[in-house]
């Protein structure tokens, strides 16, 4: 059997194409088909998980823009999610704005606050920046918990069921309707992020990550690049937070703690730093992991009662182990594993 053993371009146009081979188009079609069929195949429980994944994907893509593409470590993800969730919930429930407008304003507000907390990045790098963003996480958490005005002293915000210009989400088909709502938003966000790195702005982010001093020497405005990276990233994160507020219909501070920041960092590490596709894989992996462990615990648990008793502890242990094993074995994550698998087939019978 004759194989192509690689991708060969015959013109510059061909090289600049987004997708080079028929296989790539076929895979894209398959993914689309799977996404379209999903709500009719999955049970309500798994569709709920799919919806949480769709929301998490937006947040993970946002974090990867900052950490993976711009090289600015951030432990403040939970805080920025909180800003998005609280601001959109308050704008739509108390200020009475229509939901889409509230979401857009929340995204903008989160971007502004993200840029503000990104200011230390102008002076700090690496470890110091990580600690500075840890502080921003704790400070946002403090404001959210203690400032009674935000929740009218209730400690939480109740968000009414989503209502878009008179069209109300129904109780019976809650998950399905949300799926159709979230899917296009997530796809658009992923495409926007993907295309961001084909623009000069996106390329300047990557230059800052690779060597900030060299980037400055070739004319990248460091201040602008770093602050916009924080703003753009926080914008995505704010969108994710705002959507989660309407989807879960309550906003409480417990869902935005440091553990959440760590969870999102784990997503992009497992998926692959500096890869939009990787953020998607990572979000799917980290969100499915606890659900799958619960399933396994449920089936095996009858035979081994120890396992089902220890399930919460096991979930934590597997979470930590996943991070450690990925960092030690494949630091570039699922994305790299997937592309190695593709390369193996593409270049067969040669090794490279």
């Amino acid at each position: 059997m004759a194989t192509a053993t690689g991708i060969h371009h015959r013109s510059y146009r061909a090289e600049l194409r987004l997708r080079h081979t028929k296989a790539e188009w076929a895979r894209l079609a398959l993914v689309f088909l799977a996404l379209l069929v999903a709500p009719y195949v999955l049970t309500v429980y798994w569709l709920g998980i799919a919806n949480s994944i769709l929301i998490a994907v937006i947040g993970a893509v946002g974090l990867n823009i900052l950490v993976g593409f711009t090289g600015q470590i951030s432990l403040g993800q939970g805080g920025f999610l909180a800003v998005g969730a609280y601001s959109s919930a308050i704008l739509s429930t108390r200020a009475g704005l229509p939901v889409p407008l509230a979401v857009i304003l929340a995204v903008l507000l989160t971007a502004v606050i993200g840029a503000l907390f990104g200011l230390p990045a102008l002076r700090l790098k690496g470890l110091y920046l990580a600690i500075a963003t840890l502080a921003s996480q704790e400070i946002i958490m403090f404001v959210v918990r203690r400032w009674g005005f935000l929740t009218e002293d209730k400690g939480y915000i109740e968000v009414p069921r989503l209502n878009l210009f008179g069209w109300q989400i129904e109780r019976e088909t809650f998950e399905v309707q949300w799926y159709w709502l979230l899917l296009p938003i997530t796809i658009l966000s992923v495409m926007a992020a993907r295309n961001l790195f084909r623009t000069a702005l996106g390329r300047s982010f990557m230059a800052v990550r690779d060597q900030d001093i060299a980037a400055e020497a070739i004319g990248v405005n460091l201040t602008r690049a770093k602050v916009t990276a924080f703003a753009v990233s926080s914008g995505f994160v704010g969108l994710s937070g705002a959507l989660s507020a309407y989807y879960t219909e309550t906003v409480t501070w417990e869902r935005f703690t440091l553990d959440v920041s760590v969870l999102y960092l784990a997503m992009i590490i497992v998926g692959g730093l500096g890869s939009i596709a990787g953020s998607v894989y990572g979000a799917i992996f980290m969100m499915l992991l606890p659900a799958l462990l619960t399933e396994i615990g449920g089936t095996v648990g009858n035979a081994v009662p120890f396992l089902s008793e220890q399930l919460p502890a096991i979930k934590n242990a597997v979470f930590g182990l996943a991070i450690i094993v990925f960092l030690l074995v494949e630091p570039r994550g699922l994305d790299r594993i997937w592309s190695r698998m593709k390369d193996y087939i593409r270049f067969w019978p040669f090794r490279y």
Partner: protein
Amino acid sequence: MNTFISLTVYGLADGAILALAALGFVLIYKATRVINFAQGEFLLVGAYTFYTAFVLMGLPWILASLVGVVVAIILGVVVERFVLRPLIGEHAISVIMVTIGLSAVLKAIVQMFFGTSVREQPKILPTNSIEVAGVTVPLNRLLVILLAGIVLLAFTIFFRRSRHGIAMRAVADDQQAALTMGISVRQVFALAWALAAVSALIAGVLLADLSAVEQGIAAFGLIVFPVVILGGLDSVPGTIVGGLTIGLLKQYVSGYADPGLAEVVPYIVLVAILMVRPYGIFGETRIERV
């Protein structure tokens, strides 16, 4: 005035434990340039090991401490060898994330064996109060300050006088030069992690004695960051100054203003210091050369 003195004693006691926890952190950072997000979990593991030996196995406290020290050393060395060493030279984010993963695993292990409920442990330090300058102060807080002081002094002497201590300082200063002088950098890395685990053990046991043996001990690990940033990431005396400052600050704020505010004040100080003097009071300023 009474409130002031008692707040000061409480603050100094908290600060002394913080300084011990931060010492382990600084030891690791100084020798290996690793930011250890699992420091709080080291405290947790230390406290629970001591609890196991002391309460569950019924050993006298001296033997229990010995068991704790042995377990801490093994933990430190194993973590260094199998988790951190493969990542030498990797990007900062990988190193940070691996210690975060480690913290999740350590916490999960403790949770598996002991559950999440609070464990009762008979107090080791006397719980009665004594009168100092007309104010009654709990004796155990004073003893904690004293004990932490002794441990910190011992570590300082170790770094100044002992062969291994000087080797560790040499490696922190310049790894290649230390290698050419015949110092085993691997051994120093292992030693740094082992010592960090031991100082975390002491901090964990003291903390458990003041409050209780519970999962919440791990949360102490995060307040270490303001301490080390204040003192300087690579400064041993900085941990003492930073620890005491943050400990006192937290107590004063919670005593005079608002206990909730006291939780966040260390981080506000942290941001302020990062903006003004990122390398801390005693930290070494690093110049980046292209």
